[in-house]
């Protein structure tokens, strides 16, 4: 029997970086439309109750709002630095910058917690007696405030979770896992063995015999742990998550003046 070798690794999901980017931009587009509905409502009610909105906005703490704006803007910078570091193969710096980004996000949420807590303590929350004693425009302002900053806060949390996931991927020892093409596998069942062969044809080691019971083969390639080595697929994960983070940032940049600065 002549021995023949074939490349058995099938890229079932080939990495298409441009495709992944298109997908992410489309998703961001849907997020913009999701918030767009709320901004539309804001615009209508603002036009309907200009004076009430002006009055209600004085109740918000511009200082906390400004600090939060600075936090988010700086976090956008650090996430970009994280991408840049990974592109240059500096995994440690990339991880550090990513962690800083998440910390900024956390700072934002902590501020938000105190800000909301303060309002709720003073009885300014949807359905509260104190709020209901205000004019209709002020009630609407606070309802929009809670709905919009609440949904935005949820997005900050999701963004932090996503960035945390990417951080895990980058920090992990890079491993490539590949599926063996099942149609090729079919031919081998019961009559073959799997071997690793180097460029010059030397057999580096026999892995296993493939008998009839084997239905599926995954090939894991673990890289030596090195400072500069990273799985290129992590870069697209990081870039896409950073895009999402920027979107969260941009939405806040609109929310901040609309709620805090219209006094």
């Amino acid at each position, binding site marked *: 029997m002549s021995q*023949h070798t074939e490349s058995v690794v099938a890229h079932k999901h080939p990495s298409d970086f441009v495709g992944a980017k298109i*997908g992410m931009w*489309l998703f961001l587009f*849907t997020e913009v439309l999701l918030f767009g509905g709320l901004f539309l*409502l804001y615009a209508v009610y603002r036009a309907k109750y200009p004076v009430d909105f002006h009055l209600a906005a004085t109740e918000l703490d511009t200082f906390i709002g400004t600090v939060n704006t600075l936090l988010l803007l700086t976090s956008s910078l650090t996430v970009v630095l994280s991408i840049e570091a990974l592109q240059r193969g500096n995994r440690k710096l990339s991880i550090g910058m990513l962690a800083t980004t998440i910390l900024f996000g956390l700072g934002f949420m902590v501020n938000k917690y105190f800000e909301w807590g303060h309002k709720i303590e003073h009885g300014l929350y949807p359905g509260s007696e104190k709020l209901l004693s205000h004019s209709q425009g002020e*009630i609407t302002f606070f309802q929009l405030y809670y*709905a919009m900053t609440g949904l935005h806060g949820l997005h900050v949390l999701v963004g932090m979770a996503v960035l945390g996931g990417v951080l895990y991927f980058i920090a992990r020892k890079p491993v490539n896992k590949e599926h063996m093409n099942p149609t090729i596998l079919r*031919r081998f069942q019961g009559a073959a063995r799997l071997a690793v062969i180097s460029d010059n044809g030397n057999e580096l080691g026999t892995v296993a015999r493939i008998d009839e019971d084997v239905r599926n083969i995954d090939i894991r390639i673990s890289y030596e742990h090195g400072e500069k080595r990273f799985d290129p697929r992590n870069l697209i994960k990081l870039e896409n998550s950073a895009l999402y983070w920027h979107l969260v940032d941009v939405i806040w940049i609109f929310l901040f003046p609309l709620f805090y600065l219209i006094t």
Partner: protein
Amino acid sequence: MASHAIVETTHEENYLQYKGRHGGLWSWIFSTDHKRIGILYMIGMFAFFVVAITLGLLMRLEQLTMGPTIMQPSTYNKVFTLHGVIMIFLFIVPGITATFGNFFLPIQIGAKDVAFPRLNLFSWWLYVIGAVTALVAVFTGMADTGWTFYVPYSVRTGTNVTLAVLAAFILGFSSILTGLNFVTTVHRMRAPGMGWFRMPLFVWGLYATAWIQVLATPVVGITLLLIILERTLGIGIFDPALGGDPILYQHLFWIYSHPAVYLMVLPGMGVVSEIIPTFARRNIFGYKAIAYSSVGIALVGTLVWGHHMYTSGQSYTAAVVFSFLTFLVAIPTAIKVFNWVATLYKGSIRVELPLLYAMAFIFHFSIGGFTGLMNAAISVDVHIHDTYFVVGHFHYTMFGGTVFAMFGALYYWLPKMFGRMYGQKIGITAFVLQVIGFNMLYFTMMVMGYMGMPRRYYDHLPQFHDGHIIATVGSWFLVAGLFLMIGNLVWSVFKGAKAEDNPWGGTTLEWQIPSPPPLENFDKIPQVERGPYEHTPVEVSK
């Protein structure tokens, strides 16, 4: 070289036989194969379709006599709400896109799968989660608001609106992910040589649909979310008592839900554009016009939502503008109809069930389209708003149009999907029953509506009694036809005669591969060198 010989003689597994790493059910519900996902959607959707047909049948039965017949008025409200919610969110919005789109979009553009296979599986799981949420809502006090969930009633009613709305939200998310997957797929996965104007028209329909899914669904997402917030946290953004405006809800709702009707019908038009050239054995007439008109419908369709609100209190100017824009939709639609008819002209027509369904589509959709223009005219609409006329109209477009196109697609692609042929005679009997029953039911409804029969009413006045009897008897014919067809198709999938690879002489890529398709669709990614519907080889004159 020996290895090549082995490769070629090996019988390749098709996607139905492939076992994968898990066996049995798991190899289906965790499969990222676009073909399996398409079939999973089909099973779920048809299960819900049968439920919603039954609900519709019960509603018609209730109207058979005056006064209470088989249910109480509050039950009737829940039944029509559930009928609408299931038919819209669980059946026709995923519809042709999620089933045949998933199955055939990658094959028709010469790809092995969609751009994001895992996301595709996730979409299906969201569909399942949404469906389960809807079922839980049914058994915990189903909403009685109608499928539109209009405020303030949806916020005040004691029935479980929150869960029903949450289900619609989750299903919308599933739809968005399918849409962005398909847009990316069409942009990135086309085989070499498959230029934009060599794509089959079904792909064009799906592409336009996918954009609507991406652009319109988030708006209804946030709107439904606000209803949930209003019911759970008291954030009454639409509540007049708290300074809100309920009409804004209607605007936001229809900003999605009107484009959604084009999202339902565009893939159906794509199917008809596939069937007609195949059975007329001719290149399609006006390929580019049909392709552009799909995009045109998608574009204009996003700007016409106000025609649902002529009687809701929007400004007169707005109503006139919306009316005008609505009339504009008729142009790309008519372009399609004329092109289909022109394709049949002087074709070598072979009459088979898929073509019959395509013809029924054109017939019903033309009626649905013309009555749509009547609805679009403000002065007429003020009289027929919220009557059976509107119900008849949208059933002509959605059911007589989209769903008949979907049945055509079932017959057209069944041999490809399962490698089996359907039972012809039973199929034709079912078709005749469906067409007779459908027209008896919905044409009568339109006539009654024009005479003043309001929709969603539990009871009717004596002058509408004869009409209701005709419509109810029609519903029996229709349902008999539907069950006969479904039974026939299920039987065919398992017991039908073996089908050839290309039983219809189709020219698009799915007919160039075996039936059922192999796991990875193509051994080698094809090189595309001609348009999708070139039936005769180009003659070279000397």
